[in-house]
């Protein structure tokens, strides 16, 4: 069974009397440990697709199965719990909590899960900060580090709960080229080391080249799929 299965998924946004179809009958499977990218022009449905996989939104029609669970059945609290346990997020704008230090930002999802002792939490946070190369910045606040560093912290935060999936919506859009490469390299390394499935959307053709599977979206449908094994990183 695939980690993520979308079966004939449709998403329609209703704004007043106007209906906008963001996704039209999308079906796809994403396997475990894969490094997947959604590409396509603005408005093609990339973010909507990520939102549905990330249990942030519900499909108008069709089924979204994540780890065998139909995620459209969750209520708000159930969805939050599922996301906390199974899914990590990396956002375009980093979205770190400004009043927390780097280490505290990474620790935050573990506090929400509430299952680990403070020692276990600290060990896991330190390990991930080492991995993303931010251990020496652990006590800084987000406004004291660069954009690339913020995104590496965000990657560590997304991975700290050992999720099966990390979803990244345009993770390099606000970064310069060198920082973008570093972030993607960290994501790739973590995927290989931890076996986490990374799914991200992007416009950046250089970043796209690092993906193992590329889905091209156009007008809410899958216009093409490309399988590429062994990236340059």
């Amino acid at each position, binding site marked *: 069974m695939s980690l993520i299965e979308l079966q004939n998924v449709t998403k329609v946004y209703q704004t007043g009397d106007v209906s906008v179809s963001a996704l039209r009958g999308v079906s796809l499977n994403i396997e475990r440990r894969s490094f997947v990218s959604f590409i396509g022009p603005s408005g093609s449905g990339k973010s909507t697709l990520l939102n549905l996989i990330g249990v942030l939104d519900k499909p108008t029609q069709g089924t979204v199965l994540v780890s065998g669970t139909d995620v459209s059945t969750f209520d*708000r609290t159930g969805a939050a719990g599922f996301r*906390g346990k199974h899914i990590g997020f990396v*956002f375009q704008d980093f*979205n770190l*909590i*400004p009043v927390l230090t780097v280490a505290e930002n990474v620790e935050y999802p573990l506090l*929400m899960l509430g299952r680990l002792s403070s020692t276990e939490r600290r060990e896991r946070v330190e390990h991930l900060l080492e991995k993303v190369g931010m251990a020496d910045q652990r006590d800084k606040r987000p406004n004291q580090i660069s954009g690339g560093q913020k995104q590496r912290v965000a990657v560590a935060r997304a991975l700290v709960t050992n999720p099966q999936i990390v979803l990244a919506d345009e993770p390099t859009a606000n970064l310069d080229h060198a920082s973008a490469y570093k972030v993607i390299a960290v994501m790739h390394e973590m995927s290989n080391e931890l076996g986490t499935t990374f799914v991200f959307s992007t416009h950046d053709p250089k970043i796209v080249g690092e993906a193992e599977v590329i889905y091209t979206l156009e007008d809410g449908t899958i216009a093409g799929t490309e399988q590429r094994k062994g990236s340059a990183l």
Partner: protein
Amino acid sequence: MKNILIIALRNLSRNTRRTILTSSLIAFGVVLVVVFGGLAISFKSQMVGVLTNTAMGDLQIHRKGYVESIDNLPLNLTLSGAELAKVESMLKGMPEVAAYSPRIKFGAMISNYAQTSNIRLSAVYPDLENRTVSGFVKRIKGNVPDPDKFLSPGEILVPENLMKGLSLKTGDEIVLVATNKEGSVNAITTRIAAVTENVFGPSGKDGYIHMQDAQTLLRMDEPEIVEIAIHLQNYDQLGPTSAQLKRDATAPEASFEVHTWEQLSPFASIARIVDLLIIVVKVILISIVLVSILNIMTMSVYERISEIGMMAAIGTPPGRILSLFLVEGFAMGLLSTVAGIAVGLGVLWVMNISRIEFTFGQMNVSLAPSIPVTELVWVTVIVLFVSLLAGFQPASKASKMEPVDALGHV
């Protein structure tokens, strides 16, 4: 919870200027309540203390129907003989009653042989009176060697007003003329033993003579007691003791009625107005807290919509987001209250040192304001409760945000 508290406190430091301004406003409200409450409560308790400890006692017993015509000081509504013995026996059996003082109250004329004026006289047993209204001797000007013998037969204590009005001085001989209940007029001569300070009352013309002299003046074979003033062991027992005595007074054979000082003194209305003013100040405080916290929390939520979306997205349950904002408002209320109480107590301390003196009615009042701990606890509880109440709407709004919408908010 500890982590939520830490995040909440740090969130308060995001916009320090705004937090300080809002906290100052709430703290100002708390200072207002503490200082005004301290002044008002001290004024009230001092006035009540003066009235109950120097004149009225905590409770009074009269013959049924007396209070209705109390302004006329009637001498035909008295407790005498068996009735008095019965009431005294009842009072002696009540552990809440610390002391009681039988009195005869009547109107008389006072003359220095050249001028005459009217006077309200209280005939008392000095020892019983001193035990019942122990503060009274402090209002006698001059040295009183034995408080239980502040008055001897043949002596009178004259209030300041009359002393001035009749150009009297201590040691002067005066004549008292009174009509007894049969309508017979009699007169006695007495010597002025001392002057009494005026106590807040209807006329400031209250003098004191010994019970023995009243019997002579009014031609009574035995004292016909008009009033029994009662002093309780503990003022807090006023309600229950008064209720018990009133129950006893409803017995068919009972010939007396019971009133608390509040029912007899016009100051009780002023005390009620003081209580009302304290409530009004508290309502102002509630309004300040409500508007301040609601405003700052609404702004906080609006400014952090995207962050709320992120928190929800990475698995923060709605309840946790709700509590995060509630704790933020609560923490602000708590910090402001602590600051406000500290400043308020400081102001009261300064007032205490400098002593506030003023004249109320005919009494010189020296206030040493202080506020009871229970009042501080109430203020804290009010602010914290209102902080939670005011923070609930914005916090609830934050917890109900759809993460996908919140994340897209710019």
